């Protein structure tokens, strides 16, 4: 989940400016109470279900504990859990896989931009195409993963049968092959994410004023010129937003792994959240899992901060 942080910050700053200092009065007190009443369900929910747990995550990352033991038996182990992270092959492999997975973000964006440009101006039946490319986004990852699992079946699956039939004797065994499994998962991820990216690019393209293209035509600009000098700059906020949310999204990948590969074969598709899930709910290593959670939190925090800084620097309006 993410929202354009630029507008968030912008709004907050503006609001802060617009707050005028007023004298305290009965009306104001009443407004205060009413305001609190309106926002309190949200505040209580977020406080108990998000704020409290994130603090607990940090505290637990210094503990050695599991669900079965009583709270009294909690042991404090300092930075041991974090040290253990860097000695754990599963964790290191997860980080490496997460970094590789980043590749899906620009690839998805390139395909999506291309499709968006084509269906924005160059085709009939525009709404059919929107729905078609958007289908994977509304489908549940579980169902998608199950379907692809069968499609990727090494001997009987339609994909390999097709490859056999065109004369490829040793097609990859996809998710069964440690050196191909992650690539297979990445392919599915790209396929599933194209719709979302395309819709945002389309919205961006539609907001470009026609006059710009007309002016460019009069100057005899080529299609490439228009792409480079009109579309790309106009799409820079969208591009930047998709890049950031895409990167954050890759750090949260879980469903696909959990249903399709369970991190295997031999850890070849393990990723941060999968490793976290296994450590916490299979191995019951709460402290260690919390340390992973802290790392995940810090990764996402850094990227979010980068977004706030970068928004001003790199985005043209």
């Amino acid at each position: 989940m993410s929202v354009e942080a630029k507008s968030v910050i912008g709004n907050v700053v503006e609001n802060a400016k617009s707050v005028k200092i007023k004298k305290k009065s009965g009306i104001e007190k009443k407004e205060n109470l009413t305001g609190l009443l309106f926002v309190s369900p949200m505040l209580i929910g977020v406080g108990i279900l998000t704020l409290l747990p994130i603090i607990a995550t940090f505290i637990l990352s210094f503990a050695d504990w599991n669900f079965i033991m009583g709270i009294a038996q909690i042991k404090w182990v300092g930075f041991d859990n974090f040290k253990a992270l860097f000695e754990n092959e599963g964790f290191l492999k997860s980080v490496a896989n997460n970094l590789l997975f980043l590749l899906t973000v620009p690839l998805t964006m390139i395909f999506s931009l291309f499709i968006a440009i084509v269906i924005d101006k160059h085709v009939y039946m525009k709404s059919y195409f929107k729905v078609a490319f958007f289908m994977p986004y509304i489908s549940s990852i579980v169902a998608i993963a199950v379907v692809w699992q069968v499609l990727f079946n090494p001997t009987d699956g339609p994909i390999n049968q097709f490859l056999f039939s065109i004369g490829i004797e040793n097609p990859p065994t996809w998710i069964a092959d440690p050196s191909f499994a992650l690539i297979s998962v990445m392919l599915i991820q790209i396929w599933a994410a194209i719709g979302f990216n395309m819709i945002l690019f389309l919205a961006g393209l539609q907001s470009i004023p026609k006059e710009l293209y007309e002016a460019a035509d009069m100057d005899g600009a080529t299609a490439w010129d228009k792409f480079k000098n009109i579309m790309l700059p106009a799409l820079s906020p969208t591009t930047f937003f998709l890049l950031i949310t895409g990167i954050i999204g890759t750090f949260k990948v879980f469903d696909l792994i959990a249903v399709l590969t369970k991190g295997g074969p031999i850890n070849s598709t393990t990723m941060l959240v999968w490793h976290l899930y296994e450590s916490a709910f299979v191995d019951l290593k709460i402290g260690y899992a919390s340390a992973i959670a802290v790392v995940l939190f810090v990764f996402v925090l850094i990227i979010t901060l980068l977004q706030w800084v970068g928004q001003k620097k790199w985005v043209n309006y």
Partner: protein
Amino acid sequence: MEKKFTLRKLIITIITFVVSIAFLLPFIWMLSTSFKIEADVFKFPVEWIPTRWNGLENFKEVWLGQYPFALYYWNSIKVTVITTAISVIVSAMAAYGFSKVNFPAGKFLFLIVLTTFMVPQQSILVPQFILYRYLGLFDSHFGLILLGSFSVLGTFMLRQFFMGIHSDYIDAAKIDGAGHFRIFWSIALPIVRPAIATYAILRFIWTWNDYQNPLIFLRTDGLYTIQLAMQKFTSLNGEFYSLIMAAAVSAILPLVIVFIIGQKQVIEGIAMGGVKG
């Protein structure tokens, strides 16, 4: 200008159409397999239109068999509808409070709510799990519903819309003696109804498709939602691909319907907020 390129446009449309069909092949394969007898599933070349129909039996087995989807459907509908309803109410109230009630603490509280948005849900799973066990919310639909009910995203989205309501409306109502709750209910909410519809549809899709929370916070078979049941069904019927595909079709279908009905809202909502579940 436009007319000159009609032929070109037609050719591009045809090419794009072929690409889109290739893109949708996994769905087409899923749908066609769900109507086949098991022996025909892996026939090659693929029979896109089954020669031997077994659809009725497949879906009957999925819906009423050992792992009855009827029950899991009901669970999913219950959880999804209630989560969506509560989430819309809580978010709309907070959004109104943060935008139209002028109270000093509001700005600060809004900042706090926004900062929680950065927290990836997976990084708080463990404490949430411990908390749920402690509060007795673990393994209950109520607990699952609560997890999806407090959406910062929804609050932020709706707040943008409430801010667009001119304060003259509200001042006029105040002069007429209406309180904030009255204004919220009879003036503000009706104005932002399209935004609420958009958010509700998105929340519906995300909750229906959620796999992670049910996986961690439910244990009893009878409470499973459709996504969880889908996965259990797959491991149970490992070799019966026609049944698995019938289950997959069943899991996706309601959303395809919601999407087709609310297509405009979904696409606009996604484009407008740039939101992602």
